[in-house]
């Protein structure tokens, strides 16, 4: 639980002020005291509420690496429970940068929002579809009996990915009931309780679940698609107009790239970061027997953390648009060349060599 | 010299006349009962004299001062249901009027304690109203009215909600206290026997709009005793008033 470390000093300062000066003054003194406490700019970055194994390099980049770059302090990383909220706050100017899901970013951009994708928070996806093998043998079977699949929310990347995967297998997705269940922990519980037939979850959660019964992975979407974008680093075009923000964008990407490279090269470093930044207690305490295979899959088979984010091109993104259209999440009128801005990524790569 | 002069009071509620040109006088030390059927307007007259209800016309003059439409000033009121403040102890309830007047704490509690003793509630100073019986609550109500030392005591069917035994006891108590501190009393009741037993003078009111059917001076000396209720004259007066009221109701 890392946001505590980031916010600790600030909040303690605030509490001290509160005791002395009463409620209202904190609102004005809060930011002042934080800039005294830390040298350098504090970026506000919205991320998903939970940091799973696949999110950890992004978290580590922000929390361990960014403050090493001169002029930047450890950012205010702000976990966000509702995925679309990440994009909304970036558009509203409440956050500098967002670690957003691709679906809500694409949908907002298509609707005319002034958004730019400037980096990847991880490439591809580590989501897999898990079933209780005692009850369910195949996805075809789920569709045939009108079964239920739990996802985070209708229209998000997970939904679209499943939708596309079902179509590729020749299954009519309309025969499946998709229901929204908030957290991946709750989705896993719904599967254990037999309330749903299949659940997409991160690969390390699937590994954990297999210890509790005859649970099996029926579908690995990254195998179907080759590369399936799921989370990207975004900001608004307006934010990028100012020079200090351009510098901040490059610095942030450098921090993330550094973390990606360390992750790919050094299992020990990755494990260490996981122990610090993973949301789940079970994951933080995981042993090598559990973690090493997960790390191998993520870094090699899935290639979730490309050293140069080289997969972030309009052409690569164009490959996933048809699935979004089929799922009804996009009309397909989106201009990817305008949305994806490689300027800052290229600058960051240059500065890192 | 204490004196109450109420003249030419008129009062209507939404075009229904309740009181038409009513006047009355009370002399120092006089106990006057206002007797009449329920809802005839005698309580309204009492409220007008108390200042809680404004009159459409007419004046109320107490001890030479025009107090029409004003509360307080020389009047103490005993309400039908005692209406004690539940958040005040018996003693604090009695002291309420003095507290409103701004009398200091030790002084007002001393006075209140005196009147609480007078109504026979020594030892109940710190009791909450809900811990007292109905009769005890009304004793507190009486003490509360006496405690501000009014020249005129207004009582609105104060024993109406009590059982017969308690009422008889309280009637005697009231007379005993009143004789210790004689002041003018206006006592609203619909009990003929109660009026005859307590009052020096009775004003018998008609049904609405109220006017005085008969004024009657009670021909008994004080102190009075329970036995007078069996006196032939008492019974005769009681029947006369009863017939008068019944006749008025059917008119």
């Amino acid at each position, binding site marked *: 639980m890392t*946001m505590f470390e980031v916010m600790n000093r600030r909040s303690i300062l605030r509490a001290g002020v509160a005791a002395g000066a009463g409620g209202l003054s904190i609102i004005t003194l809060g930011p002042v005291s934080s800039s005294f406490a830390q040298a350098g700019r504090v970026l506000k970055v919205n991320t998903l509420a939970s940091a799973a194994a696949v999110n950890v390099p992004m978290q580590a980049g922000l929390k361990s690496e960014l403050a090493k770059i001169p002029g930047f302090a450890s950012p205010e990383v702000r976990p966000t429970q509702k995925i679309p909220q990440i994009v909304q706050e970036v558009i509203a100017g409440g956050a500098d940068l967002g670690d957003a899901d691709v679906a809500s970013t694409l949908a907002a951009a298509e609707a005319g929002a002034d958004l730019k994708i400037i980096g990847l928070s991880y490439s591809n996806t580590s989501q897999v579809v898990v079933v209780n093998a005692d009850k369910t043998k195949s996805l075809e079977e789920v569709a045939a009996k009108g079964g239920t699949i739990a996802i985070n929310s209708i229209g998000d990347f997970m939904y679209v990915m499943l939708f596309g995967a079902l179509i590729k297998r020749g299954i009519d997705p309309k025969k499946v009931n998709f229901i929204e269940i908030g957290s991946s922990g709750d989705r896993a519980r719904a599967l254990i309780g037999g309330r749903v037939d299949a659940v997409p979850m991160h690969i390390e959660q699937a590994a954990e679940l297999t210890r509790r019964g005859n649970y099996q992975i029926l579908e690995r979407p990254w195998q179907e698609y080759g590369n399936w974008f799921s989370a990207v680093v975004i900001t608004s075009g307006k934010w990028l107009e100012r020079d200090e923000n351009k510098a901040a964008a490059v610095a942030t990407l450098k921090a993330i790239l550094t973390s990606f490279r360390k992750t790919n090269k050094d299992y020990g470093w990755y494990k260490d970061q996981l122990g610090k930044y993973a949301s789940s207690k079970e994951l933080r305490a995981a042993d090598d027997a559990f973690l090493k295979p997960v790390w191998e899959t993520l870094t090699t088979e899935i290639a979730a953390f490309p050293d140069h984010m080289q997969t972030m091109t309009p052409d690569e993104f164009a490959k996933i648009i048809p699935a979004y259209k089929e799922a009804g999440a996009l009309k397909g009128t989106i201009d990817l060349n305008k949305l994806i801005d490689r300027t800052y990524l290229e600058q960051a790569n240059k500065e890192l060599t | 010299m204490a004196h109450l002069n109420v003249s030419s009071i008129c009062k209507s509620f939404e075009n229904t006349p309740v009181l038409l040109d009513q006047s009355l006088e009370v002399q120092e030390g006089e106990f006057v009962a206002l007797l009449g059927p329920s809802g005839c307007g005698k309580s309204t007259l009492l409220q007008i004299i108390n200042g809680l209800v404004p009159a459409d016309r007419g004046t109320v003059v107490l001890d030479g001062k025009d107090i029409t439409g004003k509360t307080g000033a020389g009047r103490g009121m005993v309400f039908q249901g005692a209406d004690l403040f539940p958040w005040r102890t018996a003693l604090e309830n009695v002291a309420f009027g003095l507290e409103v007047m701004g009398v200091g704490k030790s002084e007002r509690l001393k006075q209140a304690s005196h009147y609480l003793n007078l109504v026979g509630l020594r030892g109940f100073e710190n009791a909450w109203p809900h811990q007292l019986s109905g009769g005890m609550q009304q004793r507190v109500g009486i003490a509360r009215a006496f405690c501000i030392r009014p020249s005129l005591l207004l009582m609105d069917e104060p024993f109406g909600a009590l059982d017969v035994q308690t009422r008889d006891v309280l009637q005697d108590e009231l007379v005993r206290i009143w004789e210790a501190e004689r002041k003018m009393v206006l006592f609203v009741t619909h009990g003929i026997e109660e009026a005859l037993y307590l009052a020096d003078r009775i004003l018998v009111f008609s049904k609405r709009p109220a006017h005085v059917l008969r004024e009657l001076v009670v021909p008994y000396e004080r102190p009075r005793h329970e036995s007078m209720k069996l006196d032939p004259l008492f019974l005769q007066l009681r029947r006369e008033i009863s017939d008068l009221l019944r006749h008025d109701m059917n008119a």
Partner: protein
Amino acid sequence: MKSHPRLLNLLGILLVLVLWQMAGQRLGDALLATPVQVGRALVETLSDGLVWAGLWRMMWQMMIGYLLALGIGVPLGIAMGRIPSVDAVVKPWASMFIVVSAAAIVPLFIILMGRGLLLSTSIVFVVTVWYVVIAITEAARSVSPRLLNVAHSFAADDFKRFRYVILPALHPYLMIAARVGFVHALRAIVTAEMFIGADYGGLLNNAGLDLSTAPLFALIVILMMVSISATKLMRWIADYAAPWYASRTRDR
């Protein structure tokens, strides 16, 4: 005689715990952790500094919004209960806003005011103040007109009637509004913090990710204990401050 209902209380709790234990053992800790597992998780959670820090930050942020809600809600409620024109203006808003749950407004508020103290304070205030307003309005309206008449006939002016009748008559309802408001305030701050993954709400989110439900239940049990001890404390203060009301309700 006096310990008898307590004993029944205890037996009731024990019975529920036994049933819970049996159900938990059948369902497994991923679906329903047993009381024993939750107890173990509780000890572990409480010995973790993060929980205390998160709880502390959440509580003082909540207190600001809550005290504001009382400070504004109580006078507003009294005004609405006693002055018909104020009631006519405010009542429609109050009855509309009281049905708005924290979960419905948090996303909008995050966009409007960011994620700082302003957010938590506003959410707690907006969710709590209307419960206080409605409770106090009803109480102020139902202040006995007969007692007001008594005070009036003893020549108490408007201010003295307010001071000697309305305020003391409201006192028990103030304490009730404060208790009910506290529970709503606590629920609001937990909801808000779960949205922004901060402090205690963040801990609840993260506990939800674990396959075992024991850590989550432990956090919920801590919240319950906070809520119960706060309302108990307030009840005790209320009884101390208004012994007449305490003694009346006890006698019933």
